[in-house]
């Protein structure tokens, strides 16, 4: 008897909104999630991603819009009637119950027979690889193990939708990488839809089928990880996806490309939503190449060693600070020249942001 998500076709958020007093925490989020999809809600803290998750779980009521599971409207249901699995940021394991009773709690609430619960709990324990820890109390487990229990407890009720609220934020870097793989594996195993809240772009990129980037209660962009990584639609999304260099400039149309000024040098870039006028130019540090004939002259101000490469910042001739990455050893005070491919230099209208 394997654990498999309850069958459904799609979850539809239709203008889901929530206000807290005068604060619009969530401004009409519309999104359709299909069964089996892994969605990451990505954004800085305070962007409304956790509010969205709590609204889906039923822990917060909506102040506008609706949520549909296929043809059933679910936004007025209480959390206990929704049957979604939720993994909390602090795990929220019941401290007075053994790991087994924690995992079996949801099944016991459904009034399942004892033998049935026993079997399902064993199954869940083996999925999260904690078979021999079942009789311990949560307090006796390590952070990573507690995390696994929280996941097991959420999936054992075979929810159509699993909600995860920054589940890895309390773990150390090594464990985070390991659990990331586990979460994706479990998601594929049970075939539910997973909505995963995070502020870590790397986590979102590596886990999700689709990423929903949020800012100030609004959805800024929805897309596959590659799309978001290579072609963010707005300068703020670009900023969040690691385009650390955001340079103000004026653009002049030059065929399919635009000519802009970066660090006092004339450079060609790809227009996203602006070909002329006041623009923001976004470039990832790793898209700069150190080249003897590069147009941009830079004096290095700080160098961080990141293992294989050096992460540097330098001052350009026009006073702008630029960030770049290089594999050749450089030092503070060195003068370098940088170049960037026009397709990696994204140009955004400044009015839009």
């Amino acid at each position, binding site marked *: 008897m394997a654990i498999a998500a309850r069958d459904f076709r799609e979850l539809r958020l239709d203008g889901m909104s929530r206000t807290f007093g005068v604060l619009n925490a969530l401004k009409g989020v519309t999104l359709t999630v299909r069964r089996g999809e892994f969605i990451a809600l990505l954004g800085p803290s305070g962007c409304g991603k956790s509010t969205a998750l709590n609204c889906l779980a039923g822990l917060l009521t909506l102040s506008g819009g609706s949520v549909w599971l296929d043809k059933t409207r679910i936004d007025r249901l*209480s959390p206990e*009637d929704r049957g979604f*699995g939720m993994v909390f940021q*602090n*795990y929220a394991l*019941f401290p*007075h119950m053994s790991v087994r009773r924690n995992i079996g709690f949801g099944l016991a*609430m*459904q009034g399942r027979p004892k033998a049935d619960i026993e079997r399902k709990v064993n199954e869940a324990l083996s999925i999260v690889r904690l078979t021999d820890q079942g009789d311990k109390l949560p307090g006796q487990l390590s952070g990573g193990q507690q995390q696994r229990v929280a996941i097991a407890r959420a999936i054992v009720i075979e929810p159509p939708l699993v909600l995860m609220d920054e589940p890895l934020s309390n773990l150390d870097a090594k464990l985070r990488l390991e659990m990331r793989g586990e979460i994706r594996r479990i998601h594929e195993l049970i075939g539910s839809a997973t909505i995963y809240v995070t502020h870590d772009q790397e986590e979102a990129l590596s886990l999700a089928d689709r990423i929903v980037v949020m800012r100030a209660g609004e959805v800024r962009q929805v897309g596959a990880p590659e799309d978001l990584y290579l072609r963010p639609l707005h300068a703020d999304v670009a900023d969040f996806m690691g385009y650390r260099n955001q340079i103000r400039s004026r653009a002049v149309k030059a065929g399919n490309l635009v000519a802009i000024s970066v660090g006092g040098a004339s450079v060609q870039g790809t227009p996203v939503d602006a070909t002329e006028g006041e623009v923001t130019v976004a470039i990832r540090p790793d898209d700069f190449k150190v080249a003897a004939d590069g147009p941009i002259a830079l004096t290095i101000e700080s160098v961080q060693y990141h293992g294989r490469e050096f992460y540097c910042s330098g001052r350009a001739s026009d006073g702008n600070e630029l960030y770049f990455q290089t594999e050749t050893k450089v030092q503070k005070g060195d003068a370098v020249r940088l170049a960037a491919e026009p397709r990696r230099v994204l140009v955004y209208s400044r009015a839009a942001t």
Partner: protein
Amino acid sequence: MSEAVSPAPVEHLPLRARLALYDLDGVTLLALPALLFVVALFIYPFAYGFVLSFHPKSGGWLANYSKFFSDPFLYETIEATFRLALPATVINVLVSVPVALRVRRMRNRRILTTILVIPITLGTVLIAEGLLIYLGPQGWFNRVLVMLGIGQVRLVHNYTGVMLSLILSGFPFTFLLTLSYLTGIDPSLEQAAATLGAKARARFVHILLPLLAQGLAINLCLSFVQTFSVFPSAVLLGAPAGATRVISIAAYQAAYEQYDSSMASAIAMIMGFCQLFVVVLILAGRSFVYRGAAGGGKG
């Protein structure tokens, strides 16, 4: 001149460092005044009274105790006190739980808490006097009953009067304690239970109650000890010669009416033993409940 510097033996740390290993440092000294207070105001009088109780005015060293347990006018005070203290404590603790559950979610919790704390600041005598007038034969309460044609109810100078006063003056304390235990339970535990399909009742029975049990036991102990030593309201609102002749009245009479401080000490010792007995019983029951942190996460 070459002077060999002999390396200090590793195990020979300076005294200060060795004390620090046992968490003893300068700050520890700040506990001294409190310790002196406990010794001077609790341990010494207790020991003094204990010894005094075995030096009766007349008779052998156990004469006070045998006198107490052979005179129904004296030993029945134990039952009278239990009959007041136990129900009052249990009622207060039981009522405090639903009230605290509700208050926990209120936004202007401060106002309500302030209102509830007022009885503590007023003191038992003022409450007793107030109740005496309000519930008395000429008080508002009885006048309204008479006006409605129900007729007078006797609520003071008996068991009911003392009970009402104990509940009124004891509840705020019990409530605040329950509230603080309840707010100490991580709210995400209840939310997790809800997402797992537990209705409000199941969440209370399976999550809140087990995590609260520990706090409720402590609460029971503290309010029991408080109500067991009832004195002003038993005299003012009760029938101090009859149904509410509690053990503290017996001790008072021995000390200040018969001037037998040895007998009074013996009664106080018996009273202390009764309190200890109940507290130990409650704390023993505590070993059946979960006693760890009420948080759901690490740490």
